[in-house]
């Protein structure tokens, strides 16, 4: 008998845009990790009438889909999904299970880990495979001031949750094919002990700033509301979002929605452009998860400049304008 191939699973979380995106991002990273341990990448999908997502996951790199499609699964259900995942994992014994750190995933993954008697690392900002083939789970600690490298050396599967925006999805390719394994709903499925009385779309704005891959942030150092407004043009070119500091929001150069800080949004872009920001702790703490920081300030000793990967000593507004020109030239 041929030994079963090792597998990396990604939980197919499709309920809204960011959940869908994080699943695609995890499939992309899973594919890179799979090469190192010679594993296949699988997505696990529970729901009803979810063929669209099955197709999407295959187009984004899943080689196999475990699918349970039933009318009882039409609405996300914590206890039922946990039970289904536990049963499937016991049967198929994946090496790794990755779950998007959405509100659902954050509750679902720990439950599954406890059922399977294995470890789980929350909100990983990086995933690697080490020399022994173990999954190295990089997790932020103390508000991102520290990173811990965590391994689950003995128990299986190795489990991690990852926030949306941490990895980049690979472009879809609808030529790709994958195997769909249909898993029937078990008989005598217990009724969920938690009852969903009402569920409606929250009027809350989409979390564009929190999830953006590029953030262009401005502070008082830009000089005026008019100069601050230029950031929107830059953000547009970069496909990013605009953030602001508290003084700028108070001065009414930007909406409160754009506030990046302790009382505002926490951001975690791949690149943060910081213009004319001195770097009060309330602001910098909210920028801790930015992967790469480019700061512009006339004052080279500003706290934000010290934290930056690239510190540009110049007038923030002038650099903003030059960047716009240069990007227009380069983006064709």
């Amino acid at each position, binding site marked *: 008998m041929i030994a079963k191939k090792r597998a990396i699973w990604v939980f197919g979380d499709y309920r809204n845009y960011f959940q869908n995106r994080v699943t695609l991002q995890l499939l992309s990273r899973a594919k890179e990790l799979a090469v190192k341990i010679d594993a296949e990448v699988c997505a696990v999908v529970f729901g009803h009438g979810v063929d669209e997502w099955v197709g999407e996951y295959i187009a984004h790199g899943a080689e196999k889909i475990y699918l349970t499609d039933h009318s009882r699964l039409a609405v996300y259900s914590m206890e039922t999904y946990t039970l289904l995942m536990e049963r499937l994992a016991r049967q198929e014994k994946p090496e790794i299970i990755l779950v998007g750190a959405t509100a659902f995933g954050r509750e679902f993954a720990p439950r599954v880990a406890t059922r399977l008697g*294995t470890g789980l690392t929350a909100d990983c900002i990086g995933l690697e495979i080490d020399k022994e083939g173990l999954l190295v789970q990089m997790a932020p600690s103390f508000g991102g001031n520290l990173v811990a490298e965590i391994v689950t050396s003995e128990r299986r599967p190795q489990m991690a949750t990852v926030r949306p925006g941490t990895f980049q999805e690979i472009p879809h390719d609808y030529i790709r094919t994958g195997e769909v394994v249909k898993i029937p709903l078990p008989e005598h499925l217990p009724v969920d002990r938690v009852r969903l009385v009402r569920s409606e779309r929250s009027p809350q704005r989409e979390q564009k700033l929190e999830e953006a891959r590029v953030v262009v942030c401005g502070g008082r150092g830009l000089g005026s509301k008019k100069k601050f407004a230029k950031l929107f043009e830059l953000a547009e070119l970069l496909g990013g979002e605009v953030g602001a500091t508290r003084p700028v929001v108070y001065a009414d150069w930007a909406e409160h929605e754009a506030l990046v800080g302790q009382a505002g949004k926490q951001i975690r872009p791949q690149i943060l452009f910081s213009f004319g920001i001195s770097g009060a702790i309330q602001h910098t703490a909210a920028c801790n998860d930015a992967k790469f920081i480019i700061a512009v300030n006339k004052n080279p000793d500003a706290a934000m400049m010290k934290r930056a990967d690239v510190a540009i000593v110049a007038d923030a507004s002038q650099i903003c304008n030059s960047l716009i020109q240069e990007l227009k030239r380069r983006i064709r």
Partner: protein
Amino acid sequence: MLKMVVCIKQVPMVSELPWDPATGTLQRDLAEGMMNPACRSALDAALRIKETGGGEITAITMGPPMAEEVLREAIALGADRGVLLTDPKMAGADTSVTSHTLARAIEKACPGFDLVLCGCSTSDSETGQVGPQLAEELDIPGVAYVDEIEVSGRAVRMRRISDHFLETLEMDLPGIVTVTTGHYAPRHVPLGGLQAAFAEAHIVSLDAAAVGLDPEWIGAKGSATKIRNVYSPTAGKKNIVLTGAPKRIVEQLFERFDDKIGGAIGKDLKTDKN
């Protein structure tokens, strides 16, 4: 009478954390402790339930002996008694072992409990995993990230925002909720509370043996996850400084980082020149 259990963690006061600039690591042993903010909200939720419908609150914490401070604080705020789980063998527990330890201790010290309340996450490790894992360990219905709780009879009604959905959920007791800081605000310690906390505080201390824990399933030894290495993401970061005329600076920026910026925005920023 409604028997409530509030799980509380003592966390370091982050803004006060002393850093070791040489290694870029935290000197945790020097840190001041405080009650984790979300745990305060969980306690506040329990106190409001007690104020309106009556009940008894047990505050429970796992930690070093100094964690007793947060139990005294909870009693000062209106909890009826405290349970301190402390044992050197419990140190270094990951979330699964922590929830296992807490579950067994709750069963031991609070038999017949109705409602368990936890903070949705802690400010030091931020995993948010212990609450959901505790629900599994106790095998009772549970809901995480709850903003508001209402108890009527044996039913609990909860509201939360979950992935852009406003949800209203219901479950029967016994059950467990993890509470966000959104609705329940921390309150001040009343003067009479201080006396309760120090004069007549009812606090019991339990070690692993008293709880009857399997020695293979506690602390660092029982934990599935191991921390291999800890580092500061900012320590050792290369701080490249660019100066000069704005146009020249921007050219330099793209010469050196066009891959990085292009990668983040998903566009090719290379010119024919490079």
